[in-house]
């Protein structure tokens, strides 16, 4: 409460209410409630099979009804044309059919009522989780997403560290600015387009095969068998590294830049080898940057939809693609929510692990 009165004293009534209302709308309607709704979605389901079966049954019932109508019309015309003694036999048959038709209509009415009920009926339970954990394919895809994202993060860190160090501490100011410009341009080119560029490199008649064919390793023009392409799990990982590597460079650069150069020089003067300087001076200082870079890269890789779409070549499936199938194609929102929740939990666990490993707080991370 004292904090609110502090706000009032500082900002006045109008500004304080703006700040409080805007922040509560943001937190409640845009952040907390959507996640809470997603969580509740994971605990219920609709019986789509039953609804489908009922629908089919009703459909068949109506088809039968049409058949009865046709038969009746046929009988009516025969009755009017028939002789008196034949008429009674035909009329008996007609009555039978009318009776059957009535019964069918009654059954259809109950079926339709049940269909309407079932269509909106929800069952509470753990079906979604059971489905997720019993589906071996999807489990495999999930674990693949984890190790591929970890691999991408690790490689990005290894590749980026020298670049960030060079930019922050080694390069003369002018050249550093130039190289920086050279990194900002690809950083701002849309992710989809950068991934598309790799599709052009890795596909069958792509640039990689063109380069290999120059050395006679691959025949790019052969029709049978066609030249091999490099799409699939490997292609997706290569594409992810390319697409997300710059999200590692900038956080690293930002922290290494704040390191006092005197510390490095003191280390050199006291005879530390170059790797000692990095291990004992630069890397400890860069911890928050490493944590941010790793979290961003991992999160982008694990949640990437564009890269698998362009580079899986229809040969490998990724977790985000399954989520998309559930929410936008099969329209099973409950399974979609469950899968999305699992991805969310994975990301939260990774963030917590990074915070523990690098001993940084959330405030350090978002600097």
């Amino acid at each position, binding site marked *: 409460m004292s904090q609110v009165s502090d706000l009032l004293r500082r900002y006045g009534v109008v500004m304080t209410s703006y700040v409080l209302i805007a922040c509560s709308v943001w937190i409640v309607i845009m*952040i907390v409630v959507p996640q809470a709704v997603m969580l509740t979605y994971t605990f219920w389901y609709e019986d789509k099979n039953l609804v489908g079966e009922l629908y089919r049954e009703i459909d068949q019932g109506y088809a039968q009804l049409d058949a009865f109508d046709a038969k009746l019309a046929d009988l009516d015309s025969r009755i009017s044309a028939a002789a008196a003694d034949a008429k009674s036999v035909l009329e008996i048959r007609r009555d039978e059919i009318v009776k059957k038709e009535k019964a069918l209509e009654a059954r259809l009415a109950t079926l339709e009522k049940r269909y309407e009920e079932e269509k909106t009926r929800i069952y509470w339970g753990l079906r979604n989780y059971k489905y997720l954990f019993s589906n071996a394919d999807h489990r495999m895809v999930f674990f693949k997403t984890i190790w591929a994202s970890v691999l991408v993060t690790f490689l990005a860190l290894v590749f980026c560290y020298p670049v960030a160090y060079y930019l922050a501490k080694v390069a003369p100011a002018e050249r550093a600015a130039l*190289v920086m410009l050279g990194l900002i341009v690809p950083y701002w080119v849309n992710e989809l387009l950068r991934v598309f560029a790799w599709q052009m490199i890795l596909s069958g008649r792509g640039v990689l095969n063109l380069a290999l064919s120059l050395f006679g390793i691959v025949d790019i023009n052969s029709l049978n068998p066609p030249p091999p392409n490099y799409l699939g799990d490997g292609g997706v990982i290569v594409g992810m590294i*390319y697409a997300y590597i710059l999200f590692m460079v900038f956080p690293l650069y930002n922290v290494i830049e704040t390191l006092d150069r005197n510390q490095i020089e003191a280390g050199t003067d006291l005879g530390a080898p170059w790797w000692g300087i990095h291990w004992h001076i630069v890397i400890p200082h860069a911890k928050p940057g490493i944590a941010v870079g790793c979290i961003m890269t991992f999160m982008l890789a694990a949640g990437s939809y*564009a890269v698998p779409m362009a580079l899986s070549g229809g040969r490998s499936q990724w977790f985000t693609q399954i989520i998309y199938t559930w929410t936008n194609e099969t329209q099973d929102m409950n399974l979609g929510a469950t899968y999305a929740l699992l991805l969310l939990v994975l990301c939260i666990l990774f963030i917590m692990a990074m915070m523990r490993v690098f001993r940084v707080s959330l405030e350090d991370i978002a600097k």
Partner: protein
Amino acid sequence: MNNFITRLLAPLSNIGFFTTIIAATILGWKIGAANDALVFGAFVGLVLGIIVATVVFGFVNLMLGIHRNTTELVLVQRHGAERADALMKAASTTPGFFGMNAQQVMQTAINGYILVFLAYMFLPLVIMVAAAFNENRNPSISPWLGFTFDWFGKLMKKDELWAALANSFVIGIFVVVISVVLGLAGALLITRLRSKARTLIYGLLVSPVLVPGVILGVSTLLLWDTIGVGGGLFLSIIAQSTFIAAYAMLLIMARLQRFDTTLEEAALDLGAPHQQVFWLITMPFLRPTILTAAVLAFLQSFENYNTTLFTIGRQSTVTIFIGSAVKQGQEPTINALAVIFITITVLIAVVYEVKRRAEKARGEVQRELARRADKAITTKAVDIDRTAA
């Protein structure tokens, strides 16, 4: 013995470094020429040569321990202490070719590495741009069927692109407004909060940035689905704002931390009403950052794919258009679009850089003038002192 190896290996490894690059380039050139792709072959050779030479000779040098001390020792033995000192000095200022010391080897290695890294970042983009001008109906640089601008014309005739562009702009403008309003409120709140409340609210507001866009999209879709609002522009605006506002907040917060709050307090103490304090003191200080935040919010919204994909419904935006084109992988019209995107990006980057340099130069001129004025005053003061004495 050690010195002998050093004396032998230092020049050898440096000759080897450059010979490898030249040889690889020539080899690439030759092989390329035999396959009607001369420039491409030479280029591939050059890049591979730099990689191999850096790895082999740069690091071999380091492993053999050719560091400053041994090099100096060799020079002292050869030329005597004084001359060796001069040579070492010369070696540290001129690019070393023979007898590079450890630092210079590192330098060469890291320069080569940066070159490779930049090539890695740009090569795919260059290929994509080149294919936009190839008459080939598939997006590719081989076979090269001739230079053409056709794909740009075909791109301009695509109605769905123009509709998507309009949608992107509408979404972008709304996202900018919502993000700045929310981000400013968040920044003002958090900079004034203390202790636990601060950590909690800060964590909540920043969380959308640390979570995959897919999850933001799905959760927003589910929430609004329960009250009957389906996917479309509105949902995309809401879902995008959720995390873009957090970026705006972080930017504004960084600026607010450098704000001298005594200014506000002084104004309040002197009886200024709160609104006046905000509009005359806080806002002018924040204005440049809010502008930056607005521009970045628009770009973020325009470039967003993951969150939009899940919330856009049957509508389309530019990224959705690109996404479906990439999925189908058809004509080079998408390469033409890439050329336009990259050109705009490069232009913005160059303008930004030129502006930054101009500002820096202006700052230096001002500093220099101030320094001179300072000096003039000091000398004047000294003169006055002298005459007084």
